[in-house]
């Protein structure tokens, strides 16, 4: 990673490269189309840098193993697709509750169920928010370009380490399997954040110290003999039945994300200022939207694009801002309408969804047609 080099890479490979750059040294996974190349790439590259790759017996074991490895101090990742993502939900909730940094990639394919394994989709985006039981914090990033996958993977690790929480990377089969030129970042070029470790003496260490917004996390085996559980716990990590502590504990893990939305959000705007018709998009669909908006501007239509790179927490403020002058907002999704619910909740103007679940991408024409109606 020392020299800057232009490579022609698949989205999945870029994701793996991003993980390596971010300092990921542990990967556990179970193969599933269309995410498998991430595992294959890391199975080759991780041992070369002294990292560990393990193919587990299933997806549940995989997410469990990365949480274990993370607690033992390694930055960790797993990758999967819809069916595997469903299986990982319980483990995801555990990582949220126990505040374990780790990164989970979901390369979305056609669903529900086994669905259309080689077809693209964006139909796991609401699952990403609500898939596990109980209230829990969610951070999800949604890159759309191969180079961006690399960068966003680094960002995902950074957010995960900084906020001591699992971070999801969601992209679809199109971007996962697409190849584009990628510049590998040089060392130091991108920010790499490591989790804060405790500096207090071990006896004083409280792994869930409510005095911190994000309590420092010791690694197992380094002298801090702390306890981790998925039960509601006190600030020392031990279970509690005290109603106040239970509620406060859950609220804190949600608050730590809520209070830092500004830092977590990342959006891209195109011609948003004064846009009369806005398209709100994420992932590969946003590429079509960008193309569409550019073409519409050429035609004189006051079209604008808000592209979310952080889908969760939902960019409510940016969306409201973007729609200030808008007559309508168009939401293209490779599903039957998911994020459109969020948009409807937040904006006052007309909302139109464009949905597609036939395994084909939403093309710029579809978006242009919809937007022109409101121009």
């Amino acid at each position, binding site marked *: 990673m020392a020299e800057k080099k232009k490579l022609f890479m698949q989205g999945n490979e870029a994701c793996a490269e991003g993980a390596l750059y971010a300092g990921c040294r542990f990967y556990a996974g179970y193969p599933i189309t269309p995410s498998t190349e991430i595992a294959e790439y890391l199975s080759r590259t991780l041992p070369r840098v002294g990292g560990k790759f393990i193919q587990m017996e*299933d997806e549940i074991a995989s997410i469990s193993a990365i949480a274990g490895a993370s607690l033992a101090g390694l930055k960790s990742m797993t990758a999967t697709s819809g069916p595997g993502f469903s299986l990982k939900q319980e483990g995801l909730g555990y990582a949220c509750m126990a505040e374990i940094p780790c990164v989970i990639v979901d390369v979305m394919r056609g669903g529900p169920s086994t669905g259309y394994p080689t077809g693209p989709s964006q139909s796991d985006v609401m699952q990403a928010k609500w898939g596990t039981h109980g209230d829990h914090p969610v951070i999800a990033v949604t890159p759309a370009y191969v180079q961006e996958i690399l960068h966003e993977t680094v960002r995902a690790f950074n957010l995960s380490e900084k906020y001591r929480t699992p971070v999801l990377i969601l992209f679809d089969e199109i971007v996962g399997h697409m190849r584009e030129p990628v510049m590998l970042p040089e060392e130091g070029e991108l920010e790499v954040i490591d989790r804060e470790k405790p500096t207090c003496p071990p006896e004083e260490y409280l792994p869930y110290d409510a005095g911190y917004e994000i309590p420092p996390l010791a690694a197992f085996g380094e002298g801090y003999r702390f306890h981790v*559980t998925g039960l509601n716990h006190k600030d020392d990590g031990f279970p509690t039945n005290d109603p106040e502590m239970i509620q406060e504990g859950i609220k804190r893990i949600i608050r730590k994300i809520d209070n830092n939305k500004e830092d977590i959000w990342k959006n891209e705007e195109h011609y948003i200022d004064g846009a009369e018709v806005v398209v709100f998009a994420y992932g590969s669909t946003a590429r079509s939207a960008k193309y569409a908006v550019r073409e519409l501007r050429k035609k004189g239509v006051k079209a604008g694009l808000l592209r979310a790179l952080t889908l969760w927490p939902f960019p409510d403020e940016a969306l409201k801002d973007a729609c200030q002058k808008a007559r309508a907002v168009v939401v293209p999704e490779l599903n039957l309408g998911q994020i459109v619910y969020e948009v409807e909740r937040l904006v006052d103007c007309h909302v139109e969804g464009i949905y597609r679940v036939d395994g084909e991408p939403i093309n710029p024409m579809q978006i242009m047609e919809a937007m022109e109606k409101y121009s």
Partner: protein
Amino acid sequence: MSTAAAVKKPKISVPFDYSKYLRKGKLPHIWCPGCGHGIVLKSLLRAIEKSGLSKDDICMVSGIGCSSRTPGYVDFNTLHTLHGRALSYATGVKLAKPEMKVIVVTGDGDALAIGGNHFIHTCRRNIDMTILVYSNAIYGMTGGQFSPTTPSGSYSTTSRYGNIEPVFDCCELAKASGATFVARGTAYHVQELERIILESLKHKGTSVVEILDSCPVYYGRLNKMKSASQMMELIEKNGTVSVKQVDKLPPEKVQGKLLRGILHKEDRPEYCEEYQKLIDRVSGK
């Protein structure tokens, strides 16, 4: 209920000081009166003391269940995970820090019902860890449903007419899956158990120790056992025979009994070591 074995010359003259390994202020533990889990824990702590392992180097991992509450009481690096998944979390910990001693405490439900897949695959990989299966033939935590080790015909809250399911032999399963150290002990034979656990801690590779203990509150009550002691007597003492004695005993004394002791031990490459070799090979170290 006094026994011949018990009157042997005492080996310990001062009581063992468990407090060194117990977290302060956590006792009394949540286990019911007469629950075997506490007895097992004590054997484990004595074995750890003998092993010379340092508290910082031990990571104890568990799933969910009464038995899986053990880590909360002991002063190690402790990880109380999800039902059935202890071994997967433990695999992550061990691979990340191979220098740590990983001890998994799990129940018959946790290890063999919901966690069965991780159990067999961990054994297959022969990753270095000690797996203690607290086998009380019941799901204690959820109030007494039958488990994969509940004997056929026994009663539980989901087998009110007698269990029609056959059981797993945990040790056979571990062996067939690839575990390189397989043993069985009981909460009755506390000193033997301590020795077995000590051996398992010394072993390099996956070691499985099935420990017969008792849930007097559910299994006991539902199966008309009068007391915790009676259960221990019937199941742990009379229901087992030591591998060391089995050859000397007449067949009728062995019939239907479970073997105690170290049942299998072999040397096979350990997973983390193999992985390190791979790293050394490809990273050009």
